[in-house]
């Protein structure tokens, strides 16, 4: 019997609420908002309350998906990145940087977001940068 509470930060948005992920014998059982966290003071939004549900869900995407012949199929990162790079090069060569856009994420670090916008502006040449947390 192994019961654990792991203090962690919500992966959904930039607020960074703290909660405990409760596990029993290695299986996630619940999310409990941290009462002593200065960020959320024991409160969460509906996504935070249910965060434990996606981690071990069968339907969670664990590998990149590439559309092949109209079907989404799982591929390795190597293939997905190579494909993305090829298409980015081809599209921007033909139509310019503003033909593509970049969607950043509140679920990654500040530094990673910095890198993404830098890549968009400096390498590709577009200001088309947005993010999932435009709440």
């Amino acid at each position, binding site marked *: *019997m192994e*019961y654990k*509470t792991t203090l962690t930060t919500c992966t959904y948005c930039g607020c960074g609420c703290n909660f*405990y992920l409760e596990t029993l014998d290695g299986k996630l059982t619940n999310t*409990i*908002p941290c*009462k*002593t966290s200065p960020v959320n003071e024991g409160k*969460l939004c509906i996504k935070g309350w249910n965060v434990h549900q996606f981690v071990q869900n069968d339907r969670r995407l664990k590998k990149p998906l590439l559309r092949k012949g109209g079907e989404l199929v799982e591929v390795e990162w190597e293939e997905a990145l190579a494909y993305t790079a090829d298409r980015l090069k081809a599209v921007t060569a033909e139509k310019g940087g503003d033909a593509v856009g970049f969607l950043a994420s509140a679920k990654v670090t500040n530094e990673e977001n910095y890198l993404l916008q830098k890549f968009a502006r400096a390498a590709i040449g577009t200001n088309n940068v947005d993010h999932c947390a435009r709440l």
Partner: protein
Amino acid sequence: MIETIKQHVAGLLTEKKIAGFLGLIEKNGHVAPHLFKDGESLAGFTLGDRKTAGDARYPLNKTLVTLSRAYPEETFGVLVRGCDERGLYGLFRLNQLTEDRVIPVGFSCPAELSEACECRKPYPDSLVAGEKTESSQLKKVAEMDGKDLARRFDFWTAQFVKCVKCYGCRDVCPMCFCKECSLECEDLVAKGDLPVEVPVFHLTRAMHMADRCVDCGLCDEACPSDIPLRLLYKKTAQIMDTDYGFTSGLNKNERSPLSQMGPAK
């Protein structure tokens, strides 16, 4: 107080009376629910009082239900305040926990917490440490009852409309365990719609808690919109008490008038 409790818990563990003790621990600078095992140090053991008494309370009974479902043959110890024990009595009554598989280790709340909670019984029967603190009066309910209907209606409408439908009040509640929740029944509560339908959402929950709520106040503390949920449920409980002489969890083995057939006694 805490030393007495720790000694008592250590005894239960070494004598193998319990498979583990569900309590609170101070770690990473925070207070967390924790299952203490035999042989483990009780160094971080805490009662959940940080800046003020009872400001880091957690729904331990909820975790206890999860543990007991996974290990139905085991007996667990659990840290209880008055409200937690009321919760245990309620969960025994509602067949979510088995009484002889739970050993509550209780302590009383200080007078200021009793007053802040307007608590009817700020100490558990299974008192291991502390004195029986005096119960407090329902001042806020009386204050609200003093207003006329129109003002009360306006007050609650203004409160309910703030709801962001996080379901935190339900998710944190140690007395909420239904597999199918009425608040997710599409005929009552439209999925994905905001603001919630006033007052259906909140009154549905209040009705469902009428013979369950043990007035722990955890929902109120979890509500990001600061809706005074506890006040609402206190009023419901008051009606249950005056009209049926029933208060959830106050007495062990008491049956709910809402699940009895026939005329009221």
